[in-house]
């Protein structure tokens, strides 16, 4: 696969000195779904805004479909569809007219059959002649997606597409995204929802303080980081982990009242049976025990905290 979006050494310093991006390098492959995770103010939206032409870059180079985005902006932007984070709609316009408008704006000839298809896919066809102001928030967001798709972009940027959207609508948006992916559209989405990244993304990028901390395939990342912890609560606190347990990598937790054992679920032997017998031999009494699967969220929190230290 080849890169459809290439970002090299991208920097952005806002007037006032805020360094929003500190040399980001990112290659996005054609047809993939990339999720960008990061806390508020991490630089996700700035990154997207620069690629789409809403924000000027301070340094670096970005190409879309091989076209440099400032010198060859026309060819680059024709390939891009953008759904911004905020709900921006022309309230007094009819749904279908704003979608037609966007298609024209991107230089495409009118195509009512295509617009009908897009509105059908997004369950907006029945609402096509309604004024946008009369629609619900979720519907408005779908109108924005319809607009972004009206010129058949090959790269779609979705900036927090499911923020403040109910569960049902989120599912239907995921459905739409999958449909687009099947048609070969490259999707870059930013999100706060780890489950969204897990469900949708081929690769996950974590961004914080204007730096891209990692970009990895979602599956292997989950496996690598997808560890389980077994926490054993003790009936009485202890000062130190007994020798055989320490050798297994058990750590003391919760002020000495619990033992924490981290293991790999994919491994052949988890070592839990041996661990429990060692605990009994050490003469410790169990009060309770529970296990917990680490998620992308934990990985994300670890990374973000690590980068702030």
């Amino acid at each position, binding site marked *: 696969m080849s890169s459809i979006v290439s970002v090299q050494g991208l920097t952005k310093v806002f007037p006032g000195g805020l360094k929003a991006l500190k040399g980001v390098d990112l290659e996005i492959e054609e047809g993939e779904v990339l999720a960008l995770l990061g806390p508020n103010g991490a630089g996700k939206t700035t990154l997207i805004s620069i690629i789409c032409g809403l924000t000027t870059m301070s340094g670096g180079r970005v190409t879309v479909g091989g076209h440099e985005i400032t010198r060859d902006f026309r060819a680059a932007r024709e390939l891009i569809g953008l759904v911004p984070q905020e709900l921006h709609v022309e309230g007094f316009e009819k749904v279908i007219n704003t979608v037609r408008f966007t298609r*024209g704006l991107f230089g495409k000839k009118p195509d009512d059959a295509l617009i009908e298809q897009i509105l059908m896919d997004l369950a907006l066809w029945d609402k096509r002649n309604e004024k946008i102001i009369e629609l619900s928030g979720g519907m408005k967001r779908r109108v924005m997606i319809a607009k972004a798709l009206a010129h058949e972009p090959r790269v779609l940027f979705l900036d927090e597409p499911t923020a403040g959207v109910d569960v049902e609508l989120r599912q239907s948006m995921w459905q739409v995204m999958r449909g687009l992916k099947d048609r070969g559209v490259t999707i870059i989405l930013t999100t706060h929802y780890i489950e969204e990244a897990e469900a949708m993304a081929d690769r996950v990028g974590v961004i914080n303080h204007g730096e891209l901390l990692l970009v990895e395939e979602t599956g292997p990342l989950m496996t690598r980081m997808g560890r389980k912890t077994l926490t054993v609560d003790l009936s009485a606190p202890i000062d130190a982990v007994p020798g055989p347990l320490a050798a297994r990598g058990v750590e003391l937790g919760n002020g000495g009242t619990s033992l924490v054992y981290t293991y790999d679920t994919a491994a052949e032997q988890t070592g839990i049976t041996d661990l429990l017998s060692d605990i009994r031999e050490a003469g410790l009494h169990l009060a309770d025990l529970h296990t917990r699967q680490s998620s992308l969220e934990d990985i994300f929190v670890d990374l973000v905290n690590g980068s702030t230290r």
Partner: protein
Amino acid sequence: MNLQAIRAIYLFEMARTFRTIWQSIVSPVISTSLYFIVFGAAIGSRIETVEGVSYGAFIVPGLIMLTVLQQSVTNAAFGIYFPKFVGTIYEVLSAPVTVIEIVIGYVGAAATKALMIGLIIFATAHLFVDLPIVHPVWMIAFLVMTTFSFAMLGFILGIWAKNFEQLNLVPMLVITPLVFLGGSFYSITMLPPVWQTITLFNPVVYLISGFRWSFFGTADVPVAASLAAIALFAGLCLLAIWAIFRTGWRLRS
């Protein structure tokens, strides 16, 4: 040239005009008719003729200009300010369009609307007075040049404005006084000499004079000066717009 984009912007803006037809077209016609009745009938009964033209007819070019200037400026200003206000400007900024295409679309639509209103007022005036037109082609040409150049001014204003108050400030506090003091309702030769000289710094004088010349063949300032003034003004506006998009001032962060 992204002709589809120009077409899309133009049609979208024109659709807005027709959606608010009363506000867009009918109200300027009514207010102009009121001016006409009050100024033409009340004052016209005291001033018989100005430069050989009946007062009622004499004020028609000024009246048309008054509305056309206001409409050109406010339409174009609103046309670009509104997407900025509701945030939909992101689409235009991320689209494969050049400054020229954006300007042709927005300014063209605003100018078209102002032109339509000008012609409607012109037709309305025929109901009240006899209107000779000595240079009909020039009349249309002056109207078109004026609407386009002032729509560009409005476009700049719309980008500059940070709120609705600022949006209304220039049309109310600048355009209207300049038009009233620019000889809409009188010939500047009727003023004391000092004021005649001061008046020549008012750009609107050149517009109204040239426009009136196309009707009656008489002008306060040479027609060439009128044309030069419009060309200069349009050039400055175009330059300003180009600079705005180049730097992204008040548009891109």
